[in-house]
């Protein structure tokens, strides 16, 4: 047993010298881009080959079939049961640490058999924490308020009005316990709107009924450790832009910059996140988590939105900014917490450094989906790497790199291709993710000109061939309508 780690440089050295294989198993390696630079023997095991075999630490099984996966857990279980993946893991020592975006109890069984230690609290606990209704209760317990709400089962529109009377409005937002990115958030201000979603709402045991407020979405990532909760910066969220996503209220990116919200709001969010981290530890949860805060634009109140007890789509930004590089990326605190290595780090000092405006350089990301209803087969797709925008707004491939940092200025962007040649392009399909320095929204939270130019530029790099065979089109549409249509990030 090595001696207790007491400083950040100890932590860096510990991971640089790491010998035990660490695997991030996921559809793509998007969420933890660049972590391999910090952790020895770090490997991504992915379903989608975003880097066309150019990236040494990314392993993608070659023999694959187009499948309608039902969830991210489903993809991960498919990967872990795949012979090429098993052979790969065994060739590297038949032991190691596994990290995921999502996993379930079956994943845990497979990992146990393969000799992989899951670096997360048990799936059962995570799934309980992931419940939006449970999140409200945990927040209430420790003084982290949610938007005024009622938790109840809904039987009819009349019933909805009755039970939500105390909210003092008919303008409501209804959320089910589980669900992501705009798929299960219903905006209901009249009976017609209610009936559009009635079946889904009434099928739930209990829903969260909120007063609709004029708010901005924000995201903050943190890691609950034995020495305290490490808190990243408060990021804005890009939500529901029609040029990016077909889903109303669907997440489509983030921005991180020092002045994203007022100092007062940022302090509040940090305080709440700390409290919530402690509450999670009391529930038995530890490690990486993300909180969405809803900032009321009229009152500047900070409300708890939802909890994602995991790595998320915002992790790609949290782990690249200046503060992450001046200390260590947030995800390393997570790995450390699950490493079995003893440590005693001054978390307060880390949080103070990270909260300093100078620590937060500005980064943004866009998740670009196919927004048309059309279905076609991609014949051309832009390569992952660094792209450069000319003065006239046109873009061109500059060079290959796997790290967002390689985009050096606002004229450059790191693009990670998700849908590639030979894939179906259907409504809601993820085309790719663009990460760039600087902002992509203006102060009114609208996409700025640069963002629009990048979106147009990237879309222009894709070309498809319409599907001639009606059977093939049917398969593609089923894929789109069926299981393929979930958030893979």
């Amino acid at each position, binding site marked *: 047993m090595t001696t207790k780690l007491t400083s950040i440089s100890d932590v860096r050295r510990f991971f640089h010298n790491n010998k035990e294989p660490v695997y991030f198993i996921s559809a793509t390696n998007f969420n933890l881009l660049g972590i391999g630079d910090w952790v020895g023997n770090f490997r991504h095991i992915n379903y989608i080959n975003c880097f066309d075999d150019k990236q040494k630490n990314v392993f993608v099984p070659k*023999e694959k*079939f187009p499948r309608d996966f039902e969830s991210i857990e489903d993809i991960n279980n*498919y990967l*872990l049961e*795949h*012979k090429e993946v*098993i052979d790969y893991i065994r060739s590297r020592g038949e032991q190691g640490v596994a990290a995921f975006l999502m996993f379930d109890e079956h994943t845990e069984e497979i990992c146990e058999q393969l000799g992989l230690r899951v670096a997360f609290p048990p799936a059962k606990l995570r799934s309980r924490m992931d419940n939006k209704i449970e999140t409200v209760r945990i927040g209430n317990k420790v003084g982290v308020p949610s938007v005024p709400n009622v938790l109840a089962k809904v039987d009819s529109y009349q019933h909805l009005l009755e039970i939500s009377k105390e909210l003092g409005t008919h303008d409501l937002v209804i959320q089910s316990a589980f669900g992501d990115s705009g798929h299960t958030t219903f905006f209901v201000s009249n009976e017609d709107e209610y009936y559009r979603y009635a079946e889904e709402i009434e099928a739930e045991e209990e829903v969260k009924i909120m007063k609709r407020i004029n708010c901005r979405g924000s995201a903050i990532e943190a890691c609950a450790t034995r020495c305290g909760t490490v808190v990243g910066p408060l990021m804005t969220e890009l939500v529901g832009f029609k040029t990016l996503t077909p889903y109303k209220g669907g997440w489509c990116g983030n921005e991180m910059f020092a002045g994203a919200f007022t100092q007062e709001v940022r302090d509040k969010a940090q305080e709440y996140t700390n409290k919530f981290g402690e509450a999670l530890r009391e529930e038995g949860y530890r490690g990486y988590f993300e909180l969405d805060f809803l900032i009321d634009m009229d009152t500047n109140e900070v409300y708890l939105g939802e909890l994602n007890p995991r790595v998320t789509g915002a992790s790609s930004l949290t782990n690249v900014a200046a503060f992450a590089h001046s200390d260590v990326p947030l995800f390393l605190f997570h790995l450390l917490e699950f490493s079995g290595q003893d440590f005693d780090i001054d978390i307060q000092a880390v949080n103070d450094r990270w909260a300093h405006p100078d620590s937060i350089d500005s980064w943004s990301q866009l998740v670009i989906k196919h927004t048309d209803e059309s279905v076609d087969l991609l014949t051309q797709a832009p390569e992952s790497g660094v792209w450069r925008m000319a003065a006239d707004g046109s873009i061109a491939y500059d060079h290959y790199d796997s790290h967002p940092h390689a985009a050096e200025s606002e004229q450059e962007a790191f693009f990670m291709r998700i849908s590639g040649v030979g894939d179906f392009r259907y409504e809601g399909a993820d085309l790719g993710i663009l990460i760039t320095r600087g902002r992509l929204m203006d102060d009114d939270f609208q996409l700025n000109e640069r963002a629009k130019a990048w979106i147009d530029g990237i879309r222009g790099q894709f070309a498809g061939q319409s599907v001639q065979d009606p059977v093939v089109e049917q398969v593609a549409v089923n894929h789109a309508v069926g299981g393929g249509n979930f958030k893979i990030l």
Partner: protein
Amino acid sequence: MAKQLAFRTVHEPQAGAKWQSLFELHWSAYERWFLSEGERERPGYLAGFNALRRHMPELLPTYERLCALAGGGDLSSRMLSLYRPPAYITGCSQAVLANGNSNVLVRNYDYPPELCEGTILSSCWNGRQVIAMTDCLWGVLDGMNDSGLAVSLAFGGRTVVGDGFGAPIILRYILEFCDTTPEAAEVLARVPTHMAYNITVNDAQGRYVTAMIAPDRKATIKRVPVATNHQKKIEWYAHALASETLIRERQLSILVDDDATTEERLVSAFFAPPLYRTDHRRGLGTVYTSVYRPLQGRVQFHWPEHEVDLSFTHFPETNFTIHYGPRHHGAG
């Protein structure tokens, strides 16, 4: 329309280049079959591996060797585990004659010839010589080992499909690791099958059983010398009618119960209707007749105009083509 099937006898004690070329020859057809209900319907590699490890662990080294020879890929390895393969049905009649004078297992394999591999493989993978008509590249339709254990399978005539293995792999397991009928019976009672099968086993001491195995009920294993394509009562009338399972069973039962029945009489009954079937158009015609003599370690494969006589000491490698159709053209 005349159909034909090329048969070959292959002797390769340790699986190697010959098995590999058989794999390459048949893989595209098996891949199509394996994917016929969609790739997602088939269990993952780990599930097949775990099922083998749980139910037939001694088979794992052979399985792994064959997977490697097949290229080590995911799909081929999943298919080779024969764990929950696509559903398939066959015909078949089989009977044991074991008394003071005789000890023989005879069977007709009734199936579409184009879906049969036609490979008679002589191997010694686990220190035990096995001669078998192969199916699914290493599974067994019928065969025997050098301890004098002979086995044969017939479809059980029920449509139920469940969690378990394709029967050919269970027969392979029996031939690789059992010496006697009681040992084989223990395996048949224990290892889950994904469809209904009637498995007849006979050993050098003339001990025989027929096991009716199915995914939805406990195996029935009785000292019954004959089996066709139903289990207890008829459940699937159309198949029973088309395959004439009851008529065949009755004839076989009469024959084996008659003290005057000799091996020759039994075997020749398999060459004539109702046991010998010519309904090749519907895939219910007889593809071959095999006669196992466990005591002598000898097996004969018969066609109307061709015959192959093989044993553990005499196993020449040959190729020949059998034509099926209204008129028999014999070996070509």
